[in-house]
């Protein structure tokens, strides 16, 4: 099958920021994404684990956006602005997709 070049952006961010991240993505025209749950992790701010949570205050989520390459720059600007004050990481990988018209 015919595949097309795209970018796979994976953002690990605090769950409380979900709605704000979605809004920021929509503002730069990214409407497709998938949210994966996160069990725990470790970083400069220490360890955490979902089982130790009484509240949604400190859980994280993993947001995957597959986008056309030309959308990357505005997306990084939008997400970078949010990540600046909040903990979390973002990675960008080259990928191939089917049905490029969807992205």
């Amino acid at each position: 099958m015919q595949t097309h070049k795209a970018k796979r952006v994976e953002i690990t961010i605090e769950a409380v920021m979900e709605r704000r991240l979605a809004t920021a993505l929509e503002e730069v025209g990214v409407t497709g994404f998938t949210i994966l749950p996160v069990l725990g992790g470790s970083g400069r701010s220490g360890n955490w684990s979902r089982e130790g949570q009484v509240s949604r205050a400190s859980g994280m989520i993993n947001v995957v956006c597959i986008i056309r390459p030309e959308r990357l720059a505005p997306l990084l600007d939008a997400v970078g602005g949010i990540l600046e004050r909040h903990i979390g990481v973002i990675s960008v990988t080259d990928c191939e997709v089917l049905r490029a018209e969807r992205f």
Partner: protein
Amino acid sequence: MDGILALAAENLLSPIILFFALGFAAALARSELSVPEAIAKGMSLYLLLAIGFKGGVSLANHGVDATLILALMAGVILSFALPFVAFGLLRAMTGLSVIDAAAVAAHYGSISIVTFVAASSVLSSAGIAAEGYMVAVAAAMEAPAILSALWLVTRASGGADHGGGGLGSGILREILLNGSIVLLIGSFAIGAITGQEGLAKIEAFIVAPFLGVLCLFLLDMGLIAGRGVREARGLLRPGLFAFGILMPLTGAAFGLAAGAMLGLSTGGVALMMTLSASASYIAVPAAMRVALPEANPAIYLTLALGITFPFNLTLGIPIYMAIAQAVTGS
């Protein structure tokens, strides 16, 4: 004094405290005992539904008291005011930055519903009645403290912008409509509407097993508090630790004044003291992560959950009850 000691001793040996202690000890010993997140959340929905509903039924039984509105107003004022007290104490007693101190202060102005639930069940096993609408007061005290904390930060930073955080992003709406408040107030309203007849239908669910569920829930709280304390050992310098004990006592004093002024019953005064003494660890931390992400969550979670919550559960509640009894003369 004897009364306090006897109450405290009885309280310390009740199953709910012992299960909390079990969880705390297991976490310190690094046991992998844990309660699944969904179960913990399910139990907290259950506790909110049950306590709200019972409060509403009690309101239906006793009629709407003229002091209801006054008590709600007192709660809102306390929640607005206590963060300033906490902030002052923190800046005097600890080396916390303005942002960290404000974040902690927000927690102490707001309330912990589980502490309220525990106090209610201690009262009811001691046969002491309380105004049913105290549940609504609890709900009213959740949010105002957050505004005070954000105001403290804005003032300190000379009104500078906080990069998209702060109140801008619909945060107040999120807090007012957060799950706990909606369920608590909603169940309270349903209890008030359906009254004793409604209670009869679901009593076997919300009354009989209540204390047992609370035991399992407190086991989990103990696990979380213990894990927090273990990981944040380094943070807990004497000043912070002292604040975690002093602040609930201070809050309780304000609660006592308010309760006595309103002429609440013994149980009502004890609950008002407990609410003022308790520190939020659900709604406020979430709000702080959005509005003040620079504040260190390890500090406020450890204080609220690791120091103040256990203090209130074990010693605080019997102290507040004994003082309420002494002051209301019952």
